[in-house]
């Protein structure tokens, strides 16, 4: 190609690409953002300061507070007995979204669904984007039932039917979580995923409150296997009878 043709060719290419892009956009109305990828939670917010994952919570209602205080006394007196590693049961929402380190979260976004797979406990969370309303009479689950919709570049997710109770942060069956997922830039211009979670549980707290967590994309990371009974399984295979510290064997 001769040098003189480069600029007009480039111009034509740009114009054509614009036409093609708009044609593509018209043909397939796709979501404004794709959150697909492996995301590592980080304790630093986009400003580089420590992210306040656990916010100052509003007071609990008096009866709830009393029961919770009694529970804390028991749990603090016997941390082994009250250790979640004893039961290996998974986290209850919103706790999986508020882990601050070490265990990645994978998102697979498809046209009508966001599927989240947490390395920790292999939890799977399904967020339906097809406009459905949650079925009535759902049995409460660890992950709850999540529906979402887009407002600009922000995904709004509402979660109900969450199973009763978490250790660090009590809640009741009327819990409603509203999350706002969006991509933000940190001070160095790097992309982070922000999850802003509003916790509304009038049977437990005197007012709603909001927590935030941040995640960094880790393209080179593959989610590993976390099967929580592995310590018992390995000991069974080996025939060794040493005490597993967090089990009562």
């Amino acid at each position, binding site marked *: 190609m001769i040098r003189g043709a480069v600029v007009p060719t480039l111009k034509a290419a740009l114009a054509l690409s614009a036409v093609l892009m708009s044609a593509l956009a018209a043909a397939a109305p796709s979501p404004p953002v794709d959150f697909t990828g492996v995301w*590592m939670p*980080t*304790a*630093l917010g986009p400003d580089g300061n*420590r992210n306040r994952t656990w916010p100052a919570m509003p007071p609990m209602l008096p009866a709830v507070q009393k029961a919770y205080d009694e529970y804390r006394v028991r749990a603090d007196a016997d*941390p082994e007995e009250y*250790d*979640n*590693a004893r039961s*290996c049961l998974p*986290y209850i929402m919103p706790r999986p979204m508020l*882990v*601050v*380190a*070490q*265990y990645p979260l994978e998102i697979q976004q498809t046209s009508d669904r966001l599927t989240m797979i947490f*390395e*920790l406990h292999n939890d799977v969370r399904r967020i339906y984007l097809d406009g459905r309303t949650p079925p009535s009479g759902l049995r409460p689950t660890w992950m709850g039932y999540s529906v979402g919709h887009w407002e600009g570049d922000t995904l709004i997710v509402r979660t109900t039917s969450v199973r009763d109770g978490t250790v660090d942060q009590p809640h009741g069956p009327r819990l409603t979580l509203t999350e706002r997922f969006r991509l933000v830039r940190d001070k160095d211009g790097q992309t982070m995923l922000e999850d802003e979670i509003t916790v509304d549980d009038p049977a437990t707290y005197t007012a709603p409150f909001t927590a935030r967590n941040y995640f*960094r994309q*880790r393209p*080179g*990371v593959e989610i*590993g*296997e*976390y*099967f*929580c009974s*592995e*310590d018992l*399984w*390995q*000991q069974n295979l*080996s025939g*060794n009878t*040493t*005490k*597993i*510290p*967090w089990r009562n064997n």
Partner: protein
Amino acid sequence: MLSRPFAALSMLLVAAGSALAHHSTANFDSDKTTTVTGIVSYVSFTNPHSFFDMDVAGADGTKQYKVFATSKVALLRYGWRPDSVKPGDRITIEGRPDRTDSTQLYMLRITFADGSVWSRDEILQ
């Protein structure tokens, strides 16, 4: 022996409790550090946590130590191999002692049988 693919990442473990996911480390004394060298007798390279039993010879005989570490899935990501620690290995552990049982340690730093070292600081930037 250990690669450090994640040394450059801003992986931050703010509180030991959070880092361990759900096994509280409150019982380990964060003001004290104990260093012991001994022979590994049992390895549980597992989830939800890993631990090693090791026999440590001292003035008053041989004592068995129990060393707590984080989960297998995380250690593999930090460059560990399934056979990084094997029964019979002579290793050195630097760790936080349990407040009531000084033979239980939470691992901060390990010198493997081949002399290479892994430190939790590498992921604590």
